[in-house]
């Protein structure tokens, strides 16, 4: 099975979030970047497991500049066979998805996996957009994926529960917790990653459907009010009369 895994660069989860250029740009100063956890832990590792069980090839793809090569090498070290970087700043989800779709149209994949969302923009958009652009089915928030020939059996989260569905490849699936377990790259993987192919591809022209015009940080919390652990009636009273939440 030929599998394409979409990966995104994301700031490390402990990063201090700040903005520059009059709050119009994320301040990357001192920020450590990682592979977006959902892409790495779930989409990529499940793709590798499917390949290990039934053969095939795992390609990772990202839209970004040369500074993304570090996280690409990390994903290669975990076990992907080759990487593609579409050389453009990922302006919004639509731009990213159409770039990836245009590459996928020419290279025909049986399965395209994404993480359920990125931890920086939290949009959950790219997977569904690729599916619509390629006109193939989309299953979101998959927690299990089994492949049998070209039949895909997927467990997905739905509002208030879980559902098992069946469909045929080609398809796009967004991956959530449950799909696979995180893999730590070993030394051999890290060495091998250095020589695996990383193809840099030119971007195509795409209009900008949306843009972020500015960012801000939430208002600071006022100081915490400490309550006597013996006096829970007081807490209930405050939640009712002061906070008005119960």
């Amino acid at each position, binding site marked *: 099975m030929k599998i394409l895994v979409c990966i995104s660069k994301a700031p490390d989860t402990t990063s201090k979030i700040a903005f520059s250029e009059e709050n119009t740009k994320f301040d990357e100063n001192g920020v450590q970047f990682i592979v977006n956890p959902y892409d790495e832990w779930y989409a990529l590792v499940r793709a590798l497991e499917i390949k290990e069980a039934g053969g095939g090839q795992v390609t990772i793809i990202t839209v970004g500049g040369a500074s993304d090569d570090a996280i690409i090498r990390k994903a290669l070290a975990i076990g992907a066979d080759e990487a593609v970087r579409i050389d453009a700043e990922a302006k919004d989800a639509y731009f990213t998805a159409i770039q990836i779709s245009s590459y996928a149209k020419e290279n025909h994949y049986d399965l395209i996996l994404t993480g359920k969302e990125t931890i920086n923009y939290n949009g959950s958009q790219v997977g*569904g957009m690729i599916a619509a652009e390629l006109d193939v089915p989309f299953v*979101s928030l998959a927690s299990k994926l089994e492949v049998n020939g070209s039949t895909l059996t997927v467990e997905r989260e739905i*509002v208030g*529960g879980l559902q098992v*569905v069946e469909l045929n490849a080609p398809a796009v699936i967004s991956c959530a917790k449950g799909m696979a377990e995180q893999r730590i790259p070993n030394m051999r993987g890290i060495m091998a990653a250095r020589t695996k192919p990383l193809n840099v591809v030119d971007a195509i022209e795409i209009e900008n459907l949306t843009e972020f015009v500015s960012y801000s940080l939430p208002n600071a919390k006022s100081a*915490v009010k*400490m309550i006597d652990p013996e006096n829970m009636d007081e807490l209930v009273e405050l*939640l009712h009369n002061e906070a008005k939440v119960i």
Partner: protein
Amino acid sequence: MILVYINSTNGISKSSFEAITYGKKLGDVIALTNGGALSEDLASLGQYGASKVLVDRAIDGGDQQQITKMISSVVENNGVKTIVFSHDLFGKSVAPMLSVRLRAGLVSGAISLPDADGCIDVNVFSGKALGKVRVNSEVKIISLLPNSIQPEENGGSCPVEEISVDTGSVSIKVLSTKKPEGEIPLPEAELVVSAGRGLKGPENWGMVEDLAVSLGAATACSRPVADIGWRPHHEHVGQTGVAIRPNLYIAIGISGAIQHLAGVNGSKVIVVINTDSEAPFFKAADYGIIGDAFEVVPRLNEAVNKFKTS
């Protein structure tokens, strides 16, 4: 014309009323749904401002491609300029597909109405910051985060019209569906009681569940607790779990790691119960209790019950 898509497979939820209320503030609203929901229930959307409800009874909702085709056909036939979704698991999967099909910009996880320049606020960096999004296309899609607007009643029931849209064949076959009965879905819950590794073991969750029942709250947990299988995965909140913004979040035996806070810092009021006065969570809390959960939680439950019966 504003079109609000309603997922009615589990009946009409509060987030549907929120989406209609939101749409009504932008213009005249028609609601669109599919499947077998009762017409009386659908008509109740009129109370929040829908002028009518369109329903395609033949489409069951298992295949997002079909839903996308149904919505685009209604959009094109009614001159719709804005489509509103509730940003739940269903909206998250359909809205992006519709965005591509209509070449319409999508605001994912909106928490505000458009400002004077048409920009809409969304949470970014897992709730650690806010971003303002502008949509450049003529047709716009807004996926509204639950609990971002109060539903407002302003009318009576509205007519329900059956429609039939040709959406082609089904490509996703549903084999089985599991829905835990009687639980409040976490992203929609107004009150949430959450617990972490401080509880020592899954056998100690009884008092957490008791408190949740007394309050009418949903239950949640920290990541390690879900990872070691003390609690189901769907209860895991935080940066790599569910992001929630309830009115009240009670954190019991959770240290308040940055990744945990990222998923809950949109909560209006945070109560922290922890034995360690240095726990980082106290910095994000509105009310703090330094104490042993095994004593404090049953006491709090008793106080809540006393309050509820008085």
